[in-house]
């Protein structure tokens, strides 16, 4: 495998899956071409200004920022549906339509779902 697509469709903070997907994507960066695809509830991850100190859990947007070389694709229809379009988003992500999102999944050697 030369490329891997991590698909995250679960909301951040409510479950460990977003944290798990981010960590898994990060450790793969030096070996493979890595894409993190945010779909469904996974798109909530890109809201800018997350501050998780009072929850006592890692700040997931900080993790996203600290791996600037990670390619992050956001499924735009999911973003729209969830009312995130007017919100300030993390700048390092790429908003793509469904066609481009599915194509990125298809062009990766494997897809790992979280």
């Amino acid at each position, binding site marked *: *495998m*030369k490329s*891997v697509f991590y698909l995250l469709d679960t909301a951040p903070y409510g479950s*460990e*899956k977003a944290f*798990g997907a981010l*960590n*898994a994507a990060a*450790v*793969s960066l*030096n*070996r*493979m071409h890595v894409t993190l695809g945010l779909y469904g509830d996974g798109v909530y991850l890109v809201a800018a200004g997350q501050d998780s100190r009072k929850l006592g859990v890692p700040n997931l947007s900080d993790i996203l920022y600290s791996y600037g070389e990670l390619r992050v694709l956001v499924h735009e229809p999911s973003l729209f549906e969830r009312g995130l379009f007017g919100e300030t988003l993390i700048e390092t992500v790429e908003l793509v339509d469904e066609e481009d999102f599915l194509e990125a999944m298809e062009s990766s050697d*494997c*897809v*790992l*779902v*979280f």
Partner: protein
Amino acid sequence: MKTLTIVLTDGPYISEYAEIACKLAENALERYQVNIFLYLDAVHIPKKGQIPSFFTSAGELFTGLAKKGAVIRACARCAAARGYIAEEETVNGSNCKDYFPGIKITSLYELSEMLSKSDRVISLPR
């Protein structure tokens, strides 16, 4: 020999993914190298002492797979959080005294190594 890697994220019993993974691995082991990476709640799978009254012991199934040659590794961060601690010494193929033989705790980097060396990858999340 081709390699299949299976990534699991659920604990035993709560979902049927441990059992499905086992069936996939059993069949694949006849001709292929099989890796299984236990991530998030899946680090509970190899815990010793499981006595399920109504199900097959997931721990027994997975130690059986290891015996047949599957390489089974658990994420160190996820395992430590849940109380499974890696020790220096490896006994019976395991570096965790709470784990069944043949299943080791390793760094998450092992996942990326497994993936990069695989021909096929299966993830089975809930």
